[in-house]
């Protein structure tokens, strides 16, 4: 439809016809192409490597102390913040990661991630009704983290817990999502 184009581009050049297929031109063209392919491949190594480094450099969860166990009363649930083990200077306050600690008995703790299992919003603990409620879409969880109501597809994410020399420690360090819930005390949690 070039003829219908109100502004045809001036494609017809009035150059003298020349044979670019002469052996020398041909050789240089091929050499140029080859050089650029090699250089492109070399340059793409750092570009792609840089881009996917976040996937390759796997910051795995590590053990983090939440403080001495006697600061948690048996039967209570409260928020504790810990420092992201992989924080950088620029993280500022985003390196403070909150979690909910519930001391079920003298020796038993449950530590829940703050992120709702529906879409990751911060769940809040309501002591009187013994529920974790999510402000985004109204998900509710019982005090043992199991699903009580609303859209969440599973129980709250739970960190692996260990008592180490009188300190409560959890295995944490990544944002829990359905794809990678981090460390789970037991993968077969009740939902």
């Amino acid at each position, binding site marked *: 439809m070039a003829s219908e184009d109100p502004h045809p581009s001036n494609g017809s050049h009035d150059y003298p016809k020349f044979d670019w297929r002469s052996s020398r031109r041909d050789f240089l063209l091929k050499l140029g192409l080859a050089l650029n392919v090699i250089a492109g491949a070399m340059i793409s190594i750092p570009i792609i490597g840089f881009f996917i480094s976040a996937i390759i450099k796997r910051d795995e969860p590590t053990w983090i102390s939440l403080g001495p166990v006697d600061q948690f009363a048996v039967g209570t649930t409260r928020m504790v913040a810990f420092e992201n083990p992989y924080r950088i200077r620029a993280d500022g306050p985003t390196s403070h990661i909150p979690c909910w600690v519930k001391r079920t008995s003298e020796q038993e703790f449950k530590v829940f991630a703050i992120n709702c299992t529906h879409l990751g919003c911060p769940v809040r603990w309501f002591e009187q009704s013994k529920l974790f409620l999510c*402000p*985004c879409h109204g998900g509710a969880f019982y005090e043992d983290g199991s699903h009580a109501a609303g859209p969440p597809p599973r129980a709250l994410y739970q960190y692996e817990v260990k008592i180490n020399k009188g300190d409560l420690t959890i295995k944490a360090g990544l944002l829990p999502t359905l794809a990678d819930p981090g460390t789970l005390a037991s993968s077969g949690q009740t939902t």
Partner: protein
Amino acid sequence: MIETLRNIALWFERRLHLVKLWEQTAGHPVPKSSGSWFYTFGSMTMLCLVIQIVTGIFLAMVYVPSAAEAYHSLERLNYDQPLGWLMRGMHYWGSTCMVIVMILHMTQVFLWGAYKYPREMTWLSGCVLLVITLGLAFSGQVMRFDADAYWGLGIGAAIVGRIPFIGDALVRLMLGGAILGSETLSRFFSLHVFILPGTILAFLSIHLRLVLSRGINEPPKPGVLVKRDTYDAHYKEIIKREGVPFFPGAFNKDAVASGVLLLVIFALAVFIGPKGPGVPADPTVTVGEPKPDDPFLFIFGAAALVPNGWEIILFFVLPTLAAIALFALPFISNEGEKSWRRRPISVLAVVIIALTIGMLTYAGMTGPWSPHMDAWKSLDLKEHVLKGRTPLELQGALVFQNKQCRNCHAIDNEGGHRGPDLTSVATRMTSPQLVRQVIQGGGNMPAYGTNLSPPEVHALVAYLSSLHPPNVPPAREAIGPLTPIDEKRSGSQPSGEDTFAKAQKTPKSD
């Protein structure tokens, strides 16, 4: 003197071919009838982009894309940097207007049939521009690094984390690591100020090039059908008959509309001002309800309203289908009627889509599914729902308030709307049904069996059973009140009438 100026002008003309450039761009011929108010949305969208680029460049001079500093730099822009607040306001309202005007432009193009032959590529490039613009709006919301932005990213990660198999890798790619932090912000910064603006300019140039080369759509007349074989000649005919140079022939309304839009954006920026930043992005501070900016509220609302487990469909299947529909449109309906007056299904589609997005946006704004987190301590029970109650019922009202039932259940329209309003619950449920509901939960209500003592349940249900309007009797058991077996044996079987009479006498609370 004139001669000298003429020579200078000619000197430039010979080297830059400005006349030809002018003829091919601003002076390109358009149908005179396209100089209509409906044709001004495209140039208004482009004007918004120009505002975004100019204000964005100035904002970037002060803004610091680091999680530790971003919030402070925004406050500096708001309060310290002279006119920084106005610049932020224009950038925010420019963005809102850009999305709105772009959607109006798209709707007009759709209804006027401009996506049909030979403007398929113009439509496709426009669809890409829409996606990029929404990407800019989302990443721009991240730049306002407050709690909403932080949890918005968290929601984004949770959505990406639902993708099967590669979700985990994609989450890390998005966050720039295992956790949401400064590297996440930096990523979105480079997306917002380099990658997406670069891409939008590239696609805009394609879009404009196509507008120039394929011509602007003539306002369709009902009954004039597009045919691939004859349309080009037909359009040439129109241009020959009523073609005018875009500037100044059809530019007047664009100029007025652009001026009005500029004034609107400026007025919004002056009188309403910039948005936020809200609560700082400290994850340990869990106040407020994280909410996305307006263009994404409808998705946020839909996420709460779809049946549980349908998130995959909402976040991946539906957008994919929508994208396929948008991109396939000019190929499915390539010829034929262009006028909306003879395309009732298209008009209906626009109405339905607009209503759906509008209602979901409203739902997203009000968020009735979210518990009213502070209702139990901030709202008191009004006198008329307490007056004349027995001590037991009053005790139940205390349980209702203290056990935070109010966060999800409103009384007299005050409180959460996650669960049903209980102002007249006694007309719907009997005492035994209420006991069962409280203890076992169900129907999206948690069970309180382990959390309430039997006396608390007794008092609570007594209070709830008293909640009915004075002129409406409370609900009663369909089978009538149960009587102990001994009583039944001693007397004759009660007739239906007796049962009814007994039920009427049954006290409203037991």
